[in-house]
């Protein structure tokens, strides 16, 4: 090696090392959903938590099903998702310690402004889905076992329609995150079920707007759980529990309620509701 290249090599290494050798202490990994990350909620609340406790939270944003799998494998300390039945199954399998309800928002049916299904402004989500099916109007599904996907499947079931029978026709299952599903709906002039937070924060709304909202069945509850240290001994139980305790404390709940985009509140804290 010439002295120039050697010096260059040393300089590059010196530049790289601090980036690679990051302290592992006092950090926890939270497996969470694309809706909490893409909506910007974590960017708002995590600095507040860090300022109070010094604990750094690393968020891996996945669909609810994938986030629970990540936690099951022991690759996260805390899991923060939105599909109560899947969360209860996770607890029953012994992977979680306890489930705490944290907050809710709701799902909305988003569709083209010209409303080919004729459902805009209605409140009955099941009737709206039936209309999509009867008129064979394009619908984009997450198709990724996320909380939103599970909620969507439950609604199709309530409508007595088997979407799998229509895959490839008007029902388009893309297997991707909420943002990608919204981008696809924009491109296809299709309807799509979205959580309100991601929809409000979404920057490429184009010709889409909310068509159906306000149905009780569109309720979307988020819960948080510590991964069971008895299953995975390396779980940072103390720091993880501290994060959970903060989320459900009055301070954490206020931080969640304070997060707004253009004046609209995205998530409503309800840690005090034991049935949530």
């Amino acid at each position: 090696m010439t002295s120039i290249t050697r010096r260059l090599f040393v300089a590059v290494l010196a530049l790289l090392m601090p980036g690679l050798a990051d302290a592992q202490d006092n950090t926890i990994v939270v497996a969470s959903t694309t809706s909490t990350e893409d909506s910007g909620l974590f960017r708002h609340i995590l600095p507040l938590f860090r300022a109070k406790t010094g604990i750094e939270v690393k968020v891996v944003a996945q669909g609810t099903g994938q986030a629970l799998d990540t936690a099951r494998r022991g690759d996260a300390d805390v899991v923060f998702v939105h599909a109560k039945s899947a969360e209860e199954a996770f607890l029953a399998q012994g992977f979680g310690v306890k489930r705490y309800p944290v907050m809710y928002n709701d799902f909305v049916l988003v569709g083209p402004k010209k409303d080919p299904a004729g459902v805009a402004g209605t409140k009955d989500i099941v009737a709206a889905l039936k209309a999509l099916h009867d008129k064979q109007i394009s619908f984009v599904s997450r198709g990724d076992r996320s909380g939103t996907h599970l909620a969507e499947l439950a609604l199709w079931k309530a409508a007595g329609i088997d979407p799998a029978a229509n895959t490839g026709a008007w029902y388009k299952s893309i297997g991707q995150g909420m943002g990608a599903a919204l981008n696809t709906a924009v491109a296809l002039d299709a309807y799509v079920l979205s959580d309100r937070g991601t929809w409000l924060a979404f920057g490429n709304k184009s010709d889409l707007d909310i068509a159906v909202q306000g149905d009780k069945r569109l309720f979307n509850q988020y819960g948080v759980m510590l991964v069971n240290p008895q299953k995975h001994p390396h779980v940072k139980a103390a720091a993880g529990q501290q994060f959970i305790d903060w989320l459900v404390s009055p301070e954490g709940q206020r931080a969640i309620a304070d997060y707004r985009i253009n004046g609209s509140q995205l998530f409503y804290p309800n840690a005090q509701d034991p049935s949530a």
Partner: protein
Amino acid sequence: MAENASALQLLLTGDPALLAIVRLSLAVSLSAVACAALLGIPLGALLALTRFPGRGAVIVTVNAMMGLPPVMVGLALYLALSRSGPLGSWGLLFTPLAMVAAQTVLVLPIIAALTRQTIEDLWLEYRDELAAMNVGVMGRIGTLVWDARFSLVTAVLAGFGRAAAEVGAVIIVGGNIDGFTRVMTTAIALETSKGSLPLAVGLGVILLAIIIIINTVAWTVRRAGERMSG
């Protein structure tokens, strides 16, 4: 990164989040290329200069591995590094080191295959002279790699291009964690999914500019080196 800002604005104002992403991208990809070059160049040269049964199959395999799907490498490494996997106790999943490992696996076959071809061509050219020098395989490798060093820069750059451009592996083993494992390509994927398409495009342009700058530097160094060594 700040909402509602263009990528150019973020760059010009020295947005710390953007600079951290750029820095990590370079750190991960350059480290991976360095590791892959340290392993791949000797490996490629050895493959060029030795003869053994099944050599053809090894060469075909190395060449084929140039087309390894990044998402497959990411998944394999994810399963290995996961806490439930064989290397789980290392605690490397969702860290920059895991990203370096994934990109090293992707880049290694490219550098090894291109080195093998370069050295083999050079060997055919200088075969008689080297045979007359009566040096062993290791000596030949040293001589030929040194002679081919400027051509091998292109192999290393091809490897860097692969590392800097891929998203499939680093998003799986890195987890795209804000401020820790988020790199240019995963940030572009994230901004696209947030519908912030102009910001995503802007980040893409910055990534491309960085790749062009690195190639320019390499080309300049190579030119200067060639001139010095006559």
